[in-house]
């Protein structure tokens, strides 16, 4: 598997992660059902407001799924930022990963690599993490 995603969406996710620093930021990228195309960025509120945890508010989560259903879309990417560690799924990320069809994107804005950033994508299925290539399109 490969994640194809536009530079514009990548830039917007990185911008969100900087804006919400030191808290983790989170959100989804949606696309038409069955197409595996990450087209529509939808930032979400991290209801944990924490530098070490993120969670979509349960009410926002239901609204998101309703919206996605109504639009014949699906959640293609679930992303969040790591503010002090590398862009690799943490133990809790793996334990709570509940969307076997989604690309889990991690970005890192940790100081050690600034001004560079990391943007990496994974499948997380039954506790197994598989990194996949990211192709950034114009």
């Amino acid at each position, binding site marked *: 598997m490969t994640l194809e995603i536009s530079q514009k969406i990548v830039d917007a996710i990185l911008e969100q992660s900087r804006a919400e620093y030191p808290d983790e930021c989170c959100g989804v990228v949606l696309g038409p059902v069955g197409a595996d195309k990450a087209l529509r960025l939808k930032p979400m509120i991290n209801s944990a407001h924490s530098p070490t945890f*993120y969670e979509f508010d349960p009410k926002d989560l*239901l609204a998101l799924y309703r919206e996605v259903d109504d639009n014949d879309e699906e959640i293609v990417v679930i992303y969040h930022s790591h503010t002090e560690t590398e862009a690799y799924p943490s133990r809790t990320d793996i334990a*709570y990963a509940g969307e076997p069809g989604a690309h889990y994107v991690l970005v890192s804005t940790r100081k050690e690599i600034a001004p560079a950033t990391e943007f990496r994508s994974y499948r997380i299925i039954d506790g197994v993490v598989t990194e996949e290539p990211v192709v950034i399109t114009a």
Partner: protein
Amino acid sequence: MTIEVRIPTILRPYTKDQKAVSAEGATLSAVITNLDSNYAGLGERLLENGALRRFINVYINDEDVRFLGGLEAPIKDGDSITILPAVAGG
């Protein structure tokens, strides 16, 4: 009384890939017991030590059951239950 329960992708292996199933019960607890008797193993994915799992969200119509009495939340004819895994991590 029969109500509809919407099943998230990750739990569909328990429901033979059905996105929605029927269940019966006057409370959420009874509905989960009924679900588990028809779809073995599903109850275990929703409950832990007799309580709803922290990272499973259950809604009756548009309301989070945590605000409706949790497992004791009453179920009425025509209600719809939606189960969604939390989107969360560290």
